[in-house]
């Protein structure tokens, strides 16, 4: 069959029928899968229509002119000299300070917690389950929710922001530290213990040196990501640049809003590159 020349004028209906019987897929998908495809497509389409109706999506297009109004106001920086630069820069620094303080404190507390949550340190399954669930609880609620709660508990200001970052990060870092501790080499621990060292000394000299670079690098990464997150904590009153941003949005000072966003982007980019450089140095040194 393969070495014969196929002549189109000699193909008969019987040939076609035979080929169709042999290779049904070459003649298009079978009816069943085609029907299935259509049903799924129609269901997806009607679901999207439902969402369109649920959120009144038409307004995206009818309100677009209002977006242009904001954008036009945002790019007009003719009042630049009159903005309160000192206040804005101070708030930006406050945001970075909040991120640094909250993350570092969380890291310091997370080290012992990480040891408590690691399987090779505390073998008790019940205990580990409980500590892990506590970490999950801290992590599961967003930083912004914690901020809102702490603003209510300790009042407006950066302290609420620091506490929110601290609690949310405690969950993240303790979990990561516990996992890092669980993946350490067992042999070094055995070696130190063979010299008759106490349990604490064994952890100090066998486990800590293995995980410390990992811990520091993870903390640096968290500082980096928290300085990004901390910029919005002020929107709920927890201090920092977000507070200034929220004031400017409320009085429709769109030019300054754009300026603050640019400030945030520059600061975040600076911290990113600084922390990346430090982390690379750390990995090389270790």
């Amino acid at each position, binding site marked *: 069959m393969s070495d014969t020349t196929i002549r189109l004028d000699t193909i008969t209906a019987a040939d076609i029928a035979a080929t169709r019987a042999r290779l049904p897929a070459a003649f298009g998908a079978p009816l069943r899968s085609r029907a299935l495809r259509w049903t799924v497509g129609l269901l997806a389409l009607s679901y*999207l229509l439902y*969402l369109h109706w*649920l*959120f*009144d*999506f038409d*307004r*995206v297009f009818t*309100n*677009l002119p*209002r*977006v242009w*109004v*904001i954008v036009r106001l945002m790019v007009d920086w003719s009042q630049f000299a009159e903005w309160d630069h000192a206040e804005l820069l101070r708030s930006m*620094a*406050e945001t*970075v*300070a*909040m991120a*640094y*303080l909250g993350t*570092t404190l969380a890291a310091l507390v997370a080290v012992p917690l990480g040891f408590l949550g690691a399987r090779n340190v505390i073998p008790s399954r019940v205990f580990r389950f409980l500590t892990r669930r506590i970490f*999950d*609880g801290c992590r*599961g*609620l*967003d930083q*912004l*929710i914690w901020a*809102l*709660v*702490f603003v*209510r*508990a*300790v009042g407006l*200001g*950066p*302290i609420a*922001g*620091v*506490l929110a970052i601290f609690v949310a990060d405690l969950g993240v870092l303790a979990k990561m530290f516990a996992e890092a501790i669980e993946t350490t080499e067992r042999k070094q621990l055995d070696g130190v213990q063979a010299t008759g060292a106490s349990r604490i000394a064994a952890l100090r000299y066998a486990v800590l040196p293995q995980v410390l670079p990992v811990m520091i690098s993870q903390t640096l990464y968290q500082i980096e990501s928290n300085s*990004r*997150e901390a*910029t*919005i904590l002020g*929107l*709920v009153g927890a*201090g920092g640049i*977000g507070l200034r*941003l*929220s004031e400017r*949005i409320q009085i*429709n000072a769109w030019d300054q*809003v754009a300026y603050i*966003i640019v400030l*945030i*982007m520059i600061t*975040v980019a600076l911290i990113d590159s600084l922390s990346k450089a430090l982390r690379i140095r750390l990995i090389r040194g270790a």
Partner: protein
Amino acid sequence: MSTLHPTQDPSWRLFQERFGRLQRARRAETLLLVAIAALLLVIAAAYTDFSPAQVAAGLPRIGEYFGKLFSIEPARGAAPVPVLAWDHLFQGVKQPQSIAYWFYRIDVYLVLLWQTVQMAILASVMGFTAAFVLSFPATRTLVRSTLAVMAVRRLLEALRSIPQVVLAFILVWPFGVGPLAGILAIGIHSTGALGKLFSELNENADLRAVEGIRAVGGSWVAQIRYGMVPQVLPGFLSYALLRFEINVRSSTIIGFVGAGGIGQELRRVIGFNIYEEVSAICLLILVIVVVIDLLSERIRHRFIGSLGTKA
């Protein structure tokens, strides 16, 4: 002819000296770094008024607040009671300390949770679609003009570097208070984040299929449709599901600035100090986030599994 004890060998002394020098240098460096970190900590604490005294003063108030979250507002003069008690756990809405009493507005919450998840879905669909379209012009192996690639990439970077909540707050002005502003904010951010990941997948894809389509005279769109998309689609969908998980989290908080969903209700009850409702909503948010994470993880594994075996 006497043999020297190893410690009297001059090379031993030399070794000791060099080792000591290195050790001291290392120790000095560590100390310096710790000192810098500590100094920064002190400066940061001063900057944020975060003194031990302040925290000590705040701690009882934090404890008191969290206590209130899990207790029922007492009648005048009475002591507050915990929000749940074993004896009343499964009794009706009218009985304090039962689950039904704690979650007495569950119908409202469920509608809002539904809305929140739909917000995340629509935002993810928007982000996926826009990122899908934009990822191909942002792929260096598919576009000859470096300028065009750079332009699209900068656009994607700009979209993802504005914080979502800030974007939502801004969009509330043109689109009004409600979920639409939140959806757009999350969708725009997802476009930036997914577009970057998608274009990276595209660049790692095998170009032989694309060249094959080009060789038979396929247009640029046809090259992508038949040469590129079949290779990268599983990766795209997997990233999109991961993004959906993140978007569910975002949509629970985006309401804090008036952009719809359960967050708007949470902010209201926190503002009005309706303590039991705060803890009830927070628990529901925790549950929904965990459920969506587990579900999406399962779909992702099944999905990649089946596609992986086919390929």
